[in-house]
């Protein structure tokens, strides 16, 4: 066997993985490292490169806007991911049953996920508009409210409204993941449970949940990371307002980078978001592994 042949024989897996590794290095590893690199500078990326070391990170400790954004983000992410899990799981359980027109319902319930975020956000903004929005009109017609409410414009309701819109946009991902998990659970287990006299609730907790837990863990990680760095819909609907009540970290990072041209500071914020997302992943994996 030639040298190349021997090498291929020994390192065949590596050779096959090499193209994907190269692409990942260029598209993922390099931007990540570059992002960390610029977080150590005061830079506009063109002609100003002033080394600051950990200065940008220390400055964030006194940055009230960033601290506020982190707090807003935590509230946002907890409620959005919880909403996705509840709605997604309930709908997946229904779609897993032998209901009529199952394919139709699956397609219909997937629609919010297929609509581009920009379009969805604009639609939500119009629906919730206090002047001409159909939501206020309906509530007023039903006598539930007397005067139009600026759902996205008032401090008391803005974050809740953004969370509800985000839940309705993102639940199909959880639904389809949980549904795929449910379809891998063997029917024999349910039959055995029925013969043992398990109630539907016991069947759900003792058979369904443990069986789909790996899928749920992956879904939770992906959903949390995706929505933690969410930008588009919130930027369109509220721009981070009113009074910064919906100013997610991503909105603050965007404004710091592309309005104030403080790329070093924005880079430091992004690195912190990366660390938080990574910790979320570790936490979820530990949690489900121990279970």
């Amino acid at each position: 066997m030639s040298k190349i042949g021997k090498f291929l024989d020994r390192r065949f897996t590596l050779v096959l993985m090499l193209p994907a590794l190269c692409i990942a290095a260029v598209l993922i590893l390099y931007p990540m490292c570059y992002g960390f690199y610029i977080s150590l500078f005061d830079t506009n990326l063109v002609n100003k490169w002033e080394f600051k070391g950990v200065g940008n990170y220390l400055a964030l400790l006194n940055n009230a806007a960033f601290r506020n954004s982190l707090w807003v983000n935590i509230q946002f992410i907890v409620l959005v991911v919880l909403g996705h899990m509840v709605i997604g799981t309930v709908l997946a359980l229904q779609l897993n049953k032998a209901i009529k027109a199952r394919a139709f319902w699956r397609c219909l319930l997937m629609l919010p996920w297929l609509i581009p975020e920009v379009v969805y956000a604009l639609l939500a903004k119009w629906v919730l508009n206090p002047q001409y929005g159909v939501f206020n009109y309906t509530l007023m017609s039903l006598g539930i409210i007397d005067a139009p409410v600026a759902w996205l414009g008032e401090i008391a309701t803005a974050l809740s409204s953004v969370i509800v819109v985000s839940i309705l946009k993102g639940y199909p991902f959880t639904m389809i993941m949980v549904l795929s998990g449910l379809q891998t659970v063997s029917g024999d287990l349910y039959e055995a449970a029925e013969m043992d006299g398990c109630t539907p609730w016991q069947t759900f907790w003792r058979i369904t949940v443990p069986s789909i837990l790996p899928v749920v863990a992956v879904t939770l990680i992906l959903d949390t990371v995706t929505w933690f760095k969410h930008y588009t819909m919130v930027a369109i609907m509220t721009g981070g307002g009113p009074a910064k009540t919906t100013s997610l970290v991503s909105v603050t990072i965007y404004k710091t980078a592309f309005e104030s041209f403080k790329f070093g500071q924005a880079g430091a914020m992004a690195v912190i978001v990366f660390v938080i997302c990574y910790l979320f992943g570790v936490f979820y994996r530990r949690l489900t592994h121990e279970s």
Partner: protein
Amino acid sequence: MKKIIGCIAVLLVLCMATSSVAFAGEAQTTVQIMGPWVVESPEDSVLKSVVEGFEAAYPQYKVELIGVPSADVNKQVQAMAASQTLPDLVINNGANNAAWKEMGIVENIESKFSKEFLDGFYPEMLKAFYYEDELFGLPTCAAPFVLLLRNDLLTEAGIEVPKSYDEILAAAKKLTVDTNGDGKIDRYGLGLMGFPDANTALRFILALFGSDAPDVYKDEAGNFATKIGSPESMDAFKLYMDAQAQGVIPPGATEVDYKTMVSLLSTDQIAMAISGPHTIGNICVQNPDMVGKFIAVPLTGRKTVAYLNPYGFVKFANSPNEAGAIAFLEYAAQNFVEMTRVTKRPPSRVELAEVAKEAAPEVAAILDCAQYSIDLLNLPFRADIYAAVYEGVNSMMAGMYATPEDAAEAMRAAVQAVLDEHK
């Protein structure tokens, strides 16, 4: 044999024709122009016609248009500057010249034009493209910020054009009505923008100038300072807060961005707004019934003011086709009257004033506003000032502050922090 000779002859002719086309192609160089007018309607059709005219007048140049939504222009320029792929020209209002100068991506092009040519611009418009005595581009038209009014409603209600902030509020109160008798207000007297973006900041800054309280000015010692928080500036804060408290603006002011405001104006839901003739163009595109119903007057508080907001083209340093870019700048400045006809934006050149007035009668009043033009300082940290102002307006309209004094103090502190950072 004859067939072979015939075939060779045809091939020779084809080769000659192909090579001449290739030669012509080589001789033509491409001028790249990037900006929002490429993707915005109806501006796109105007730009296209100007480009066609330019290409016919200068056959050695071909124009490549790169569309970028106005909200993304800064981001795109930043990314292209970092990757050294900037185009020749960008459509802009000159507001970023100071920041771009600091980045070293624009250069002085004053020497490329004759003094006579530059003297042909309205000085207030040309000034916006200067920073520290260096010229970075040329204006083609203005997208002014003034007070936009529904003249038909004013006449119907017997109201004079308001000449102070108190009169604006009084007029707005009279114009806030239930038009269909269902017991609910469906037309408000005034529209104020409160969405956290630069459009909101610019409109409030105009109101500050109208109160004789510039957002940023140079004090006697030559340092940047702000008049926000001064007794004069309270007029602007009171105008916004009183308008909300008296219910003469639609609910949800913090949601009102430029597009929403255009929508409210074109659907007859508000009667007045701080904006300009370019807005009239957009309104009439959305609702042709509104043609001829709007007038635009300077905003009058303690002072009479207007922000001309001249728009045009900025040339980047070391642009790939400098000669073509300069030729286009010169051509475009003199051939943008179609923009006036379509969007009601007044032209930047004095010699076009009469032609423009014929094309769009609304322009006459706007050109008169030039004398009230505010001195909005071109600053490298302008975006930070806008952010401090729009966050303040957004919080004020969200009901964060009990009094105008509280709102003014919060905004003053935010603007002062920016000034301190850039001392």
